[in-house]
């Protein structure tokens, strides 16, 4: 079986990986974000995963209205990106755990989760930004699962948590020993391309993280039954919390959550949390 040994959820704001944007950031805020990522990286290294399943979102760089899967698994041998130029994020190439990705897709199709798959999926800043802090050597194979969080209609928060829980079950059916990390990326509150762009809702962000850390994702799901309700408090960018809920859904009961950092940067609430083995 593949054991989920750690979970991490983190924002993927592109300014965290754009060198010139980093230079323009408030130094104290950035140092706290960097410390949060450093702590997450240390926990990840302690957990020694063989692969990282990443629930991330797309920004129309890979999917579009002509082909819009709710959950898309990358199953190629490697992936490169980000593919856009305007964010000025250095491009990287990462190995994929193709065998594990294909297993997830097959198990899904046989057991009620209709994953789409791609053998040639580029990376987005949604994967590259957090990985640049967590695995800066780019040496752990990944399985990206791209969740539609920007092009309505989108899978519900409830469905995202269910798919996360399903992925945990799939890991239990993996026929060999493997240590797996799960990463959810995106959010937190931000308004993208809208008149309110620049707004952040720190109250929502802290409530969301604390509620997730307490294992009460059902409360989040019950409160925000549709995308419009979530839009109003967290912005269209806040729809990316789907990836946090998917990661949380994948967590086995043996792992306990903690919030590592939260900073309301201008334009995006930056959060980092981790689920790790409870101390004996």
């Amino acid at each position, binding site marked *: 079986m593949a054991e989920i040994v750690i979970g991490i959820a983190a924002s993927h704001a592109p300014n965290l990986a754009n060198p010139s944007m980093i230079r323009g950031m408030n130094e104290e805020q950035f140092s706290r974000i960097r410390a949060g990522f450093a702590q997450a990286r240390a926990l990840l290294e302690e957990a020694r995963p063989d692969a990282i399943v990443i629930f991330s979102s797309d920004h129309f760089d890979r999917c579009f209205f002509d082909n819009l899967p709710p959950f898309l698994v990358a199953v190629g041998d490697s992936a490169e990106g980000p593919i*856009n130029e305007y964010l000025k994020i250095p491009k990287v190439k990462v190995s994929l755990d193709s065998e594990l990705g294909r297993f997830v897709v097959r198990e899904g199709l046989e057991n009620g989760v209709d994953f789409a798959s791609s053998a040639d999926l580029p990376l987005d800043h949604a994967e590259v930004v957090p990985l640049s802090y967590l695995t800066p050597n780019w040496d752990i194979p990944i399985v990206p699962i791209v969740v539609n969080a920007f092009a309505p209609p989108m899978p519900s928060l409830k469905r995202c948590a269910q798919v996360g829980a399903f992925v945990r079950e799939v890991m239990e059916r993996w026929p060999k020993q493997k240590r797996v990390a799960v990463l959810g990326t995106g959010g937190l509150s931000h308004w*993208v*391309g*809208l008149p309110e*762009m*620049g707004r952040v809702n720190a109250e929502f962000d802290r409530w969301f993280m604390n509620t997730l850390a307490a294992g009460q994702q059902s409360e989040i799901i019950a409160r925000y039954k549709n995308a419009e309700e979530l839009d109003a408090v967290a912005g269209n960018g806040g729809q990316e919390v789907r990836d946090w809920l998917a990661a949380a859904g994948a967590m086995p009961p043996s792992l306990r959550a903690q919030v590592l950092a939260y900073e309301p940067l201008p334009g995006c609430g930056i959060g980092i949390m981790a689920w790790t083995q409870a101390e004996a």
Partner: protein
Amino acid sequence: MSQYQVSRLLRDIARDTEIARRCRTELSIVLNNYNLDDAERDAVKNWSVRALYDMGVNPLLLLTSSMAMGTDIRAYTAALNEKR
């Protein structure tokens, strides 16, 4: 009006620096590949983010294509917040 067609153009601008460049230098030729109505063509020609926003274009697409076209973000936000 086809929101899909104008969205497709914005997607292509965001993804492809060459298309973004050609939109600045030979827009009418680029637009031959997209079935836009007159209002959409004018909005793209003038890069009127407000007009495109009011047409219902996805805001993420609007922002990313604007960034690819070199639009200043403060000017972008100001345009969206102009009082009618």
